């Protein structure tokens, strides 16, 4: 059918109507709903051709050409049509009012389906799992650390009772194997990697894209396990939002959160800005009443702004600035100065992040040019120490010398050109990355003075010979120069490394049938010897600090990652289904492995060394099932079944003849369950309410625990956890300008939480695993103009 046809019909009918203009009677009155007049309602006769429009006060005058018994219909958008039958004689004037009923159905379901969770997967050769803000809301996530586990292959774990150090594990590999990107830029340094997951508030996040395995050549070569790309919001509408959240952790510790966001966008959309702010205060939580924290005290203030300006339709200049101030403290007697306590880990971070980027599209729309520069700078005051249960002069001197400070600078700049040739896309770019870290604790003679420079060149070709096949061929050449000096007490190590490494990447996708896609890929990656996040953190064992230092002659680590996946997606009417089965096989050569060398320092402190371990392989399956029979019901289930093992027994603890303790070795990766996953179910019965049931499962795994002053380890096989959350949310749209959302629920309903924490001043603070918090009740309130 064409537009012409409808226009012709319309025209004919109007012409006919326009000729009949002899009136014989008049009906007049007012159209109302709830006693309020309705403006501009249409009034017409059902079997004739007479009509009128009401004025803005709801008053109408309908002149009739036909008389007798007639039916009059009133139509107004948003109200149910109403028909009245009247009898009128020629020459008469009649009064007739109408009262319409609001049509509450109709639009409702549209809003829900379009703005809430939908099962979808991008048509890209690389499998991208997207975490949408809805899942962060559904899980009442306060920071990125809370919500990140809801993608297959991703697990977030807490590593220290004293400071709450968190890291993300992708396919079982530790934090440093994953590159965390902020708006596709690697400003997340090793230092930010320690606590940064808890420093990014969720109210600024538009979506998080998780790519498992190094699929794209565009991101750094150290993205061996994958990338986590945090994309912040880019607004269109003028909005504002104020939110608060109050949680009660384990019936005891209060966690308070205040968030503010506002966006202003020019009428011509050529410029816009977003402000965001976040304040959080969390009380410390002590799970076993030993006076030592299991969850640390936290105070976080984040605010910033992001703006863009378009000089014309083909170019865009973007800028962002943000500041994070975070204070955290754990241990015992948090009200005392740290040197008077048995254990304190106290960190005060000041982070500034700034970025600028410029995009230019060619006149013919085929070439995109991008230039960018981003930087983050952090200063950190730290205290890692305490009396450790002792009260001697020596303990006191050591405790007084545990203050330290850290300076960390990351600066990343690059250019990128993307050229489209019909269906094919060529991308190339150059990126320079500088990371300068200086971490100093004079009392321990602990120093990390490290400068990492890397220059990367990459090229990638997306080849699409047919509609069914896509190949992504790429490679990157990285020149990395590391210049580092590392000391602890009388141990001193240095790294002077420079090398150029080629990392090829290849991904293929083939569309087997309309609903079935297969993908395969290969990626090579490497990590240059350098201090990563864990090396900037000090835990405590046996009342003494436990340090990590690089070993002598540490060599680069290489990886080969293969992935293959099958993706079935089906939409039948409004039913949506998506099934992803992904196999991965990664081999690591010379993996950086932390080995405890026991209590070798003069003061009895334990030193762990980062060494090149024996070869390892990590393999398994990620699965993800999305199912939604209609927009009101949505279910997502994902998980990982995997093995992570060394080719031969890997040393974890090095005994000594002196202490008589033996070596401890293991072939399985520690802290890596063979099965873990998530569940996300949403029920949206109507526009006002939605109910979310979310949860994560962490299978049993081996967690080492230090059981003697010398650092001797016990390898514990710990029980699985099932952390289930329930949230109910209600929306009230008072007007378009003012919307209120109220929510409440329980996190970790079954109180699935570690029950064998180490106790007292000599505890092993790294012996922590499983869900981040015990049963937690929460309520939330949000108001503003959201959309």
């Amino acid at each position, binding site marked *: 059918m064409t537009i012409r046809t409808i226009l012709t019909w319309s*025209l004919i009918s109007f012409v006919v109507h326009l000729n009949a203009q002899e009136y014989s009677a008049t009906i007049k009155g007012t159209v109302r709903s709830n006693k309020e007049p309705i*403006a*501009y309602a249409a009034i017409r006769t059902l079997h004739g051709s007479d009509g009128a429009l009401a*004025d803005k006060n709801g008053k109408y005058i309908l002149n009739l050409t036909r008389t007798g018994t007639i039916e009059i219909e009133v*139509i107004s958008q948003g109200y149910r049509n109403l028909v009245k039958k009247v009898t009128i004689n020629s020459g008469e004037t009649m009064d007739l009012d109408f009262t319409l009923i609001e049509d509450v159905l109709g*639009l409702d379901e549209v809003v829900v389906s379009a703005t809430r969770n939908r099962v979808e997967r991008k048509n890209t050769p690389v499998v991208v799992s997207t975490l949408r803000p809805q899942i962060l809301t559904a899980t009442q996530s306060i920071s990125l650390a809370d919500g990140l586990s809801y993608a297959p292959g991703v697990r977030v774990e807490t590593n220290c009772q004293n400071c709450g150090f968190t890291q993300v594990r992708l396919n079982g590999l530790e934090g440093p194997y994953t590159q965390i990107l902020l708006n596709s830029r690697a400003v997340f340094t090793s230092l930010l990697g320690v606590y940064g997951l808890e420093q990014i508030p969720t109210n600024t996040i538009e979506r998080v894209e998780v790519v498992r395995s190094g699929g794209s050549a565009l991101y750094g070569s150290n993205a061996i396990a994958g990338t986590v790309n945090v994309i912040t919001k880019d607004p269109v509408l003028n909005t504002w939002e104020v939110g608060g959240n109050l949680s009660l952790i384990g019936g005891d510790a209060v966690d308070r959160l205040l968030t503010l966001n506002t966006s202003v966008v020019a009428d*011509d959309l050529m410029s816009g800005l977003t402000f965001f702010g976040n304040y959080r205060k969390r009380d410390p939580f002590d799970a076993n009443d030993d006076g030592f924290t299991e969850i640390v005290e936290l105070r976080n203030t984040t605010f910033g702004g992001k703006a863009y300006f378009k000089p014309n339709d083909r170019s865009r200049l973007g800028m962002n600035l943000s500041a994070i101030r975070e204070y955290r403290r754990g241990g015992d007697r948090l009200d005392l100065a740290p040197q008077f306590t048995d254990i304190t880990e106290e960190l005060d971070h000041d982070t500034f992040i700034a970025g600028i980027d410029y995009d230019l599209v060619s006149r013919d729309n085929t070439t995109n040019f991008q230039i960018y520069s981003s930087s983050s700078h952090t200063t950190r005051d730290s205290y890692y120490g305490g009396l450790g249960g002792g009260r001697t002069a020596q303990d006191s001197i050591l405790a007084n010398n545990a203050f330290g400070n850290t300076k960390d600078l990351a600066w990343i700049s690059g250019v990128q050109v993307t050229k489209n040739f019909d269906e094919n896309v060529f991308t190339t770019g150059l990126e320079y990355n500088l990371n300068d870290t200086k971490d100093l604790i004079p009392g321990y003679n602990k120093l990390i003075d490290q400068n990492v420079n890397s220059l990367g060149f990459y090229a990638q070709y997306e080849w699409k010979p047919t509609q069914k096949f896509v190949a992504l061929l790429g490679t990157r050449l990285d020149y990395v120069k590391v210049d580092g000096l590392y000391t602890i007490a009388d141990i001193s190590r240095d790294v002077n490394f420079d090398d150029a490494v080629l990392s090829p990447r290849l991904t293929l996708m083939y569309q087997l049938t309309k609903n079935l896609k297969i993908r395969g890929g290969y990626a090579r990656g490497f990590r240059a010897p350098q201090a990563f996040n864990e090396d900037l953190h000090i835990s405590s064992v046996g009342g003494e600090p436990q340090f990590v230092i690089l070993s002598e002659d540490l060599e680069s680590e290489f990886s080969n990652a293969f992935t293959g996946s099958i993706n079935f997606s089906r939409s039948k009417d409004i039913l949506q289904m998506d099934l992803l089965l992904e196999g991965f096989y990664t081999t690591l050569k010379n993996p950086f492995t932390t080995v405890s060398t026991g209590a070798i320092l003069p003061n009895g402190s334990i030193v762990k060394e980062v060494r090149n371990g024996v070869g390892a392989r990590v393999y398994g399956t990620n699965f993800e099932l999305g199912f939604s029979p209609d927009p009101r019901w949505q279910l997502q289930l994902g998980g990982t079944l995997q093995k992570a093992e060394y080719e031969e027994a890997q040393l974890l603890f090095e005994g000594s003849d002196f202490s008589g303790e033996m070596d401890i070795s293991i072939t399985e990766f520690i802290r890596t369950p063979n099965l873990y996953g998530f569940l996300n179910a949403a029920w949206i019965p109507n526009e006002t309410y939605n109910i979310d049931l979310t949860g994560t499962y962490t299978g049993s795994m081996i967690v080492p625990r230090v059981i003697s002053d010398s650092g001797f380890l016990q390898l514990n096989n710990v029980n699985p956890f099932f952390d289930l959350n329930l949230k109910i949310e209600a929306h009230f749209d008072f007007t378009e300008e003012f919307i209120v959302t109220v929510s409440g629920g329980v996190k970790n309903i079954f109180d699935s939480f570690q029950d064998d924490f180490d106790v007292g001043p000599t505890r092993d603070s790294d012996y922590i695993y499983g869900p981040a918090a015990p049963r937690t009740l929460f309520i939330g309130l949000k108001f503003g103009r959201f959309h």
Partner: protein
Amino acid sequence: MSTSVQQVNAQSESVRWMDFEALEVALTKETKKVFVDFVTEWCVYCKKMDRVVFRDPEVIRELNANYYCVRMNAESQDSIKFGGRTFINREVGLKRNPTHELPLLLGSREDHPFTLPVIIILNERFEVVERYFQYISPEQMKTILKI
């Protein structure tokens, strides 16, 4: 010709939106140019236009004085009688975002999926003069409406 349409004050502060059924009634009384705006609840650019373009006094004055303005939810599930025919939403129960027959008819393009916003301007003879498929700023709208 005395119709209620003419009684309405052209200076009122908002665009006088009507639906297609009201348009049919109005066109029988007096022919005018027609301005059609298809929107949905989730279309942010439509919302942005509603908040800035259709609140611009000059745009409002011009639209109210010289056009019949029709706004329709493109995902409406109503049956709409227009031009002697009934138009329905044939995609209800088949698609997550079911688009009504009428916007599909007026706002479809070859080689492009149906996207919003869709703005259609018709002349006094109810013939399509212009169609726009993107955000239009107040200044652009003034140019389009020749204000």
